[in-house]
């Protein structure tokens, strides 16, 4: 392939598109991000909170949105669509239509006057019709980009030729009614599709009375109601009478798992979504009672079952396994639900409000898009992929990520996005680059010795802060503080226009320190630091006062006290700012090689992703052969052959000129830090060798749980699903007839000691049962299960198995199936299984010829040792703990180390491949750089004060400080120091200090409120 282009087109700017764009841009790739709506962000901004941590969705997304729009290599094309791809992979021509916006984004200052004056009210798409917006508007308050656009279908001037009010009030003359659609051509090397999903629309789904009954809402509408930034400010009210609901019902699987409407797939996220909403609703109103009506609770993700347990046992959410047969509206607007338990009992119950947990469906227009771009869809009109190529469309060079290829939650979307990037870079020709080159263009202003000139910006955050705190008063107060040269209140400090304002003010008032009083520095400090840096200030000359999360939101009923507290917080911030000094970020060299630990499917896939991108990879495997757990997998639902794929993969890895396979090796020591790791290992002959590398990928896999339950180990007729699969493959069954086969699910999972779902076992058991049926059509198959969790497209196979006569008995932890040998002394005896059938409400006895156990997936014990070597955390289940469960699912908090596959948590082969590729591409975001910059907030030693006592050495967890034996004083390794400050507070001589949090700076903060403090709060 010649003329490869180092640019990629990403279609869809939801979380998947944003992640893919950021990863590519960090590797030095030029990105064209094409988005249909006027803003990036996709579905995530519509969410109030995210499960299972209850993180605020917008809070975690906003920094990524800002980073995306500010990245110099990412070009945004909003209100645009992709019409056609021509050319060849590596050199595509994409034709993109940019629709008319009718507002000049360069001139628009997002003041909102136009929206205020616009006479046309229309339904707000973002708030799913729960409030009105105008024909000229911002898509939502924190839209990025923030400029306004006109809806041409509703604008009076554009439809009827009258009005023009917006252009009359616009202070900058930004309105342009003559704007037209434009077609542009983009020359790119690869295309990544991330168009996401639509929520299922239950109109016409008569039985639940949606749209007929006022108090029946969809889960997305309910989410907007819960959201503090939503149409009701977070106060859930009934549409019928405005009263807060006391009794809330959630109905699951609306538009999912439903053959009658051709949606025989599980939407995967709605169970957790409903659990989250019930928890949040109860947190809003402790008196509220929530009931979830469901078929199976599919809490299959990492830490999901703990969340489910918390909802049930801590928050008291009621879970009722039943079918809703009828909803009737009562005269007061309440709703009478008729539901049937599995034993046939019919119940009636009245609720104030009903939430329909709607499923996810392909985006409207998927069919047309697939025809335009010549890619194939599956039968539900999601993008078609196969088990081993989960991120590839049917067209070479065009990749897919996010929920476009099937229902996914946020972390899976993020993983698939990073994974798709690894595929795309194969079609590019990337050189390693030095990000510090070119940044010298911005000359940093030397402020040494200058009197502090502080600028204070107090944010309204819409009404989030200003609704409680008197923001103008706080800004006025700040203007009188010593060294404050400028103080003002701003609507949204983080908006692109306000960031420009801050830069302007720095220029106008010659500011050399900036304080922003707004939300929390945890999410927004990087953004503001970048901003002042663009204005020529050292990024560390910045301080934040948290007057939203820790003030206005926490003292909503005490506006005066909250205003007083905000003043104090600003004053403390100004005191801190006064003492701030510029900090240097030193460049850290990055070695281009990577180490991958674990030679299973995940490890090999990661190694290939990095090797194919032109970097040397060391692949360490403890065993003598590659393949890991995959060696025991023989079938897939889609008919693809795991063993063939495994053999091909091993061959690719072993013959790859960039990959050095180190089988039979054990790691003895890993030292170093991002870009500069050093690993010592013993190879199969016992010889010790050392490697240097820039990144580490942990792909150590998982183990099948060794159970002692259900006679396992003492009977030849009790096997695990893994053993059963091999049996099916080799067609070697236990001697004698094979007539009755019982499968027991959740063996070791979801109970004391392993409070998690092993995720793959339900689908695996269904798959193996169907394979058994193919071979022995007369076998009777029985399942003893707790919840069947065949999420996604596996649902179809589950219903196929049911149709083909397999019987399912649900058991509970208190009433597990009982097993005994019919002939107790005979290891080959048939097994008598007694299981309680909740449908018939009595015990069922099956004399099984074979008992197949779906045993849990265990985290290997060796994880602990490796975690210590790498200084990365494990969760309580012994699984590696990622940096952030939603948005950093393959990263560790420690830079340069990544995780994938079963080491992160139970997952199937498709998911492992996607995550392994993601880990590879996340590693490449470092490896593609020749150097990165270290943190500025690290420790420093005043050698004249140091007595060399060595106490600092003892408390440092990173071996970042050591006493130099010759000089007799402590020395800090800048690249290793994480800036915790433990050594500083331990130092007897006051020789140590932490840059950015020095004793002097902190003392001045403690002292800043002295004058009024003795009298308490004013």
């Amino acid at each position: 392939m010649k003329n490869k282009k180092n640019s990629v087109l990403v279609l869809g700017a939801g979380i998947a598109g944003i992640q893919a764009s950021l990863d590519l841009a960090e590797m030095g790739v030029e990105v064209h991000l094409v988005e249909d709506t006027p803003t990036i962000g996709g579905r995530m901004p519509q969410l109030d909170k995210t499960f299972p941590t209850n993180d605020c969705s917008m809070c975690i997304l906003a920094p990524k949105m800002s980073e995306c729009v500010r990245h110099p290599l990412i070009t945004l094309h909003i209100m645009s669509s992709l019409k056609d791809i021509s050319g060849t992979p590596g050199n595509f021509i994409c034709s993109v239509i940019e629709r008319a916006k009718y507002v000049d984004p360069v001139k628009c200052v997002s003041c909102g006057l136009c929206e205020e004056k616009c006479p046309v009210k229309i339904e707000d798409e973002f708030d799913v019709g729960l409030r009105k917006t105008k024909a000229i508007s911002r898509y939502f308050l924190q839209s990025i980009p923030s400029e306004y656009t006109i809806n041409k279908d509703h604008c009076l001037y554009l439809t009827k030729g009258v009005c023009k009010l917006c252009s009359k009030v616009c202070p900058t003359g930004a309105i342009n009614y003559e704007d037209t659609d434009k077609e542009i051509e983009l020359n790119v090397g690869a295309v990544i599709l991330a168009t996401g999903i639509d929520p299922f629309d239950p109109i016409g789904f008569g039985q639940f009375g949606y749209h007929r009954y006022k108090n029946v809402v969809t889960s997305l509408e309910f989410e907007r109601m819960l959201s503090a930034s939503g149409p009701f400010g977070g106060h859930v009210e009934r549409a019928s009478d405005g009263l807060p609901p006391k009794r809330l019902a959630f109905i699951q699987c609306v538009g999912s798992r439903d053959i009658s409407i051709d949606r025989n797939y599980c939407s995967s996220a709605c169970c957790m979504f409903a659990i989250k909403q019930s928890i949040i609703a109860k947190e809003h109103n402790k008196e509220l009672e929530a009931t979830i009506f469901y078929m199976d609770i599919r809490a299959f993700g990492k830490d999901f079952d703990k969340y489910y347990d918390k909802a049930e046992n801590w928050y008291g959410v009621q879970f009722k396994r039943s079918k809703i047969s009828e909803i009737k509206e009562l005269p007061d607007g309440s709703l009478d639900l008729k539901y049937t338990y599995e034993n046939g009992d019919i119940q009636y119950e009245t609720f104030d409000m009903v939430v329909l947990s709607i499923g996810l469906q392909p985006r409207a227009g998927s069919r047309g898009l697939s025809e335009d771009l010549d890619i194939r869809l599956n039968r539900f009109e999601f993008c078609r992929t196969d088990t081993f190529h989960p991120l590839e469309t049917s067209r070479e060079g065009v990749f897919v990520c996010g929920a476009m290829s099937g229902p996914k939650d946020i972390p899976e979307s993020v993983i698939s996005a990073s994974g798709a990037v690894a595929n795309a870079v194969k079609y590019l020709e990337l050189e390693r680059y030095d990000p510090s080159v070119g940044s010298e263009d911005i000359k940093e202003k030397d402020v040494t010795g200058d009197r502090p000139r502080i600028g204070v910006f107090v944010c309204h955050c819409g009404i989030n802060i200003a609704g409680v705190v008197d923001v103008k008063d706080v800004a006025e107060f700040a203007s009188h503080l010593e060294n404050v040269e400028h103080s003002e209140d701003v609507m949204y400090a983080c908006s692109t226009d306000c960031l420009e304002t801050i830069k302007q003010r720095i220029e106008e008032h010659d500011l050399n320190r900036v304080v922003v009083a707004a939300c929390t520095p945890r999410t927004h400090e990087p953004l503001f630091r970048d901003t002042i840096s663009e204005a020529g200030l050292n990024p560390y000359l910045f301080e934040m006062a948290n007057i939203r999360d820790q003030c206005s939101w926490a003292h909503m009923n005490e506006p005066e006290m909250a205003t007083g507290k905000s003043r104090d917080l600003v004053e403390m911030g100004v005191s801190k700012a006064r003492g701030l000094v510029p900090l240097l970020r030193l460049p850290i060299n990055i070695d281009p090689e990577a180490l991958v630990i674990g030679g299973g499917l995940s490890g090999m896939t990661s190694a290939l992703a990095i090797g194919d991108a032109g970097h040397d990879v060391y692949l360490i495997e403890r065993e003598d052969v590659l393949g890991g757990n995959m060696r025991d997998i023989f079938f897939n639902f889609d008919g693809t052959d795991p063993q063939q794929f495994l053999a091909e993969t091993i061959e690719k890895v072993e013959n790859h000129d960039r990959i050095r396979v180190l089988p039979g090796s054990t790691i003895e020591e890993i030292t170093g830090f991002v870009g500069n790791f050093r690993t010592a290992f013993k190879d199969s002959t016992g010889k010790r060798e050392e490697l240097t590398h820039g990144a580490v990928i942990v792909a150590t896999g998982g183990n099948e749980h060794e159970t002692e339950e259900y006679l396992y180990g003492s009977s030849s007729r009790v096997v695990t699903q893994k053993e059963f699969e091999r049996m099916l493959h080799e067609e070697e069954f236990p001697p004698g007839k094979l007539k009755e086969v019982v499968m027991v699910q959740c063996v070791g999972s979801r109970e004391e000691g392993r409070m998690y779902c092993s995720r793959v076992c339900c689908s695996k058991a269904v798959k193996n049962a169907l394979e058994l049926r193919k071979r022995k059509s007369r076998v009777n198959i029985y399942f003893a299960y707790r919840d069947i969790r065949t999420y996604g497209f596996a649902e179809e196979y589950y219903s196929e198995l049911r149709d083909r006569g397999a019987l399912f008995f649900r058991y509970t932890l208190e009433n597990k199936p009982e097993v005994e040998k019919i002939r107790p002394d005979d290891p080959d005896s048939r097994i008598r299984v007694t299981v309680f059938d909740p449908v018939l409400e009595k015990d069922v006895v099956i004399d099984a010829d074979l008992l197949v156990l779906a045993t849990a997936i265990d985290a290997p014990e060796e994880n602990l040792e490796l975690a210590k070597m790498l200084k990365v955390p494990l969760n309580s289940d012994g699984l590696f703990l990622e940096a952030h469960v939603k948005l950093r699912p393959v990263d560790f908090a420690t830079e340069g180390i990544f995780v994938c596959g079963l080491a992160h948590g139970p997952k199937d082969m498709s998911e492992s491949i996607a995550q392994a590729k993601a880990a590879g591409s996340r590693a490449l975001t470092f490896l593609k750089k020749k150097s990165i910059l270290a943190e500025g907030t690290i420790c420093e030693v005043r050698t004249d004060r140091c007595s060399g006592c060595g106490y600092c050495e003892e408390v440092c967890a990173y071996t970042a400080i050591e006493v130099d034996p010759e000089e007799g004083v402590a020395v800090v390794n800048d690249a290793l120091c994480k800036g915790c400050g433990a050594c500083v507070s331990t130092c007897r001589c006051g020789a140590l200090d932490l840059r950015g949090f020095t004793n002097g700076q902190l003392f001045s903060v403690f002292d800043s409120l002295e004058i009024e403090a003795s009298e308490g709060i004013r």
Partner: protein
Amino acid sequence: MSEWQPKILAILCNWCSYAGADLAGVSRMQYPPNIRVVRVPCSGRVDPLFIMKSLQSGFDGVLVSGCHPGDCHYISGNYVARRKFAVLKPLLEFIGIEPNRVQFSWISAGEGERFATVVTKITEDVRKLGPSTRLVKKL
């Protein structure tokens, strides 16, 4: 405002307790507005002198909070902190600072509710004790 309101300094670690305080806000949990928060990277950064200095500056109470033992973002910083506080506590008592005026707690990033409870408790405790005068310099 007629009623005396105590002013309390809260020194919170960035990764757990500060995040927990944010979560309390995001969850709209309401607690008394008497605390003034200072963010430090880790509870291990907290020097006993910080506490003395705050009381001297006129704060009526001090709350120090870090990650739960075992959860420290910096692996062991909170253990370093815990050892220091164990020594500091009796010293404070010895110089006449009532035990409830200075409190230590462990609050994770997921414990917004706990943060609200802890803040409510220390505020009420300090309110009962009245203004702190022991270390305040009177001019």
